[in-house]
């Protein structure tokens, strides 16, 4: 395959990583924790979408919206039940709890659906258009447009609305935000809802591209998106977007020109290289450690 085709594949995959990475980065920025169960929300989002596809006649956009809503509620519920009681405690106990929730979600879905992969319906079949001789599928086009639309909406929400600004205030200084009358519980809930909804949208796009889903599918996908968030600068939303596209494109090019077997090794090396050169990530500022 030629370079342009690889690049388009990379952008498609990168869109998905970017949507997932936003969830990691927002939760880190606002709740100051790394949520290792975030990857498993993608898996849950895929299964929910599959269930809706199989049991209702809802059109695909309705399926995406319903799965995003259900995942948002699940994300909020997990935060309330599992993470909120640990707020103010050590970061390590919160981290271990997120890993526990991750294992729990995988095992619940293993029990419910078994370990064998389930086929996912082809959601956006068909031709898209041809760009300079390279065919771009409808799925690729939808993935990119949906991702860009959601990024614009999120940027406007965080930048322009009162609730979005309050989230930024909480991310900078929880105590000062409380003195403004901002309810930090609400801001944190909202963060989990947004991150989980974006993960569910990514789940449908991803499962349409790689149409076999299983209870462990979120692990590697989540890890890659987490790396994307760190490369871009964890806590910084545009960084997660940038990191997602970088990882997606790098992965496609490595697959196309080097070797599929080396993809993961090279992506992890990329992380290490970025962290050595710029520990706070590509868009991060090297801030002095707060005392």
């Amino acid at each position, binding site marked *: 395959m030629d370079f342009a085709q690889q690049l388009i594949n990379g952008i498609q995959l990168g869109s998905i990583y970017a949507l997932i990475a936003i969830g990691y980065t927002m939760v880190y920025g606002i709740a100051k924790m790394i949520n290792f169960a975030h990857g498993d929300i993608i898996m849950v989002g895929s299964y929910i979408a599959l269930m809706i596809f199989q049991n209702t006649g809802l059109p695909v956009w309705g399926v995406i919206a319903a799965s995003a809503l259900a995942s948002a509620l699940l994300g909020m519920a997990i935060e309330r039940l599992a993470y909120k009681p640990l707020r103010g405690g050590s970061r390590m106990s919160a981290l271990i709890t997120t890993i526990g929730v991750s294992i729990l979600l995988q095992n619940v879905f293993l029990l419910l659906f078994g370990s064998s992969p389930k086929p996912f319906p082809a959601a956006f079949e068909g031709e898209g258009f041809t760009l300079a001789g390279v065919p771009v599928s409808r799925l690729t086009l939808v993935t990119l447009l949906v991702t860009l639309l959601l990024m614009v909406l999120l940027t406007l929400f965080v930048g322009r609305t009162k609730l979005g*600004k309050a989230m930024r205030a909480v991310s900078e200084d929880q105590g000062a935000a409380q*003195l403004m009358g901002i309810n930090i519980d609400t801001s944190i809930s909202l963060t989990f809802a947004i991150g989980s909804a974006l993960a569910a949208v990514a789940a449908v796009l991803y499962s349409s591209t790689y149409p076999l889903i299983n209870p462990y599918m979120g692990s590697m996908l989540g890890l890659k998106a987490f790396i994307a968030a760190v490369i871009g600068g964890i806590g910084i939303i545009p960084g997660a977007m940038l990191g997602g596209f970088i990882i997606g494109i790098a992965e496609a090019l490595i697959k196309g020109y080097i070797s599929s077997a080396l993809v993961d090794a090279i992506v992890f090396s990329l992380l290490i290289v970025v962290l050595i050169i710029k520990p706070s990530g590509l868009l991060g500022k090297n801030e002095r450690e707060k005392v």
Partner: protein
Amino acid sequence: MLKVEDLNVYYDKIHAIKGASFEVRDGEICTLIGANGAGKTTILQTISGLLQPKSGKITLDGSEITGRAPNKILLQGLAQVPEGRRVFSKMTVLENLEMGAYTRKDAAGIREDYEMVFQSFPRLKERIHQQAGTLSGGEQQMLAIGRALMSRPRMLLLDEPSMGLAPILVDEIFSIIRQVNQSGVTVLLVEQNAAKALEIAHYSYVLATGQIVSSGEGKSMLTDSSVRSAYLG
């Protein structure tokens, strides 16, 4: 207006505030002076609801606010300018003021109050779309005060507003505090800079290791022996 009775606050096993009682009278500037580590910040954070007291009672105009959530206390008309300013450094000056008005819904009144803040602090108006982190220390302190005023408080708590500022800026900040008070806002001012604070205070309390050790009417405290020996040299 504000009454604190037999307040006890702990950090785990550390008994930081040991039975402090004091009162801020309506319309006055009251100062709480004390050395570093005396417990001034702890008291203000407990009043604002950021810390929970072990025991004691805090009342605002007769209604008890002890242990209530910070947003509830703000809605009662009590705003705080925290120690170290703590402006939202990645947000613009205007966005910081907007956060100060977070609990309000009256758009017209909020716009009026932006103007009021910009009138008191013209330098903030020049920097309205600048990120707060790029402001000088004095400007950040002005922003922190302006931000607190955006909730239209009846009472303002200030935690060491002169900290780290050049003397000329300290004078400016203190004259602003006096103006705020003259506009009808009751003030509780916490300071290490005792000489300055006593000059503008109607009434003063001296805090040492979590206890009120002395108190008196404003300028009379300048000659108080405990104050003289500890703070004025």
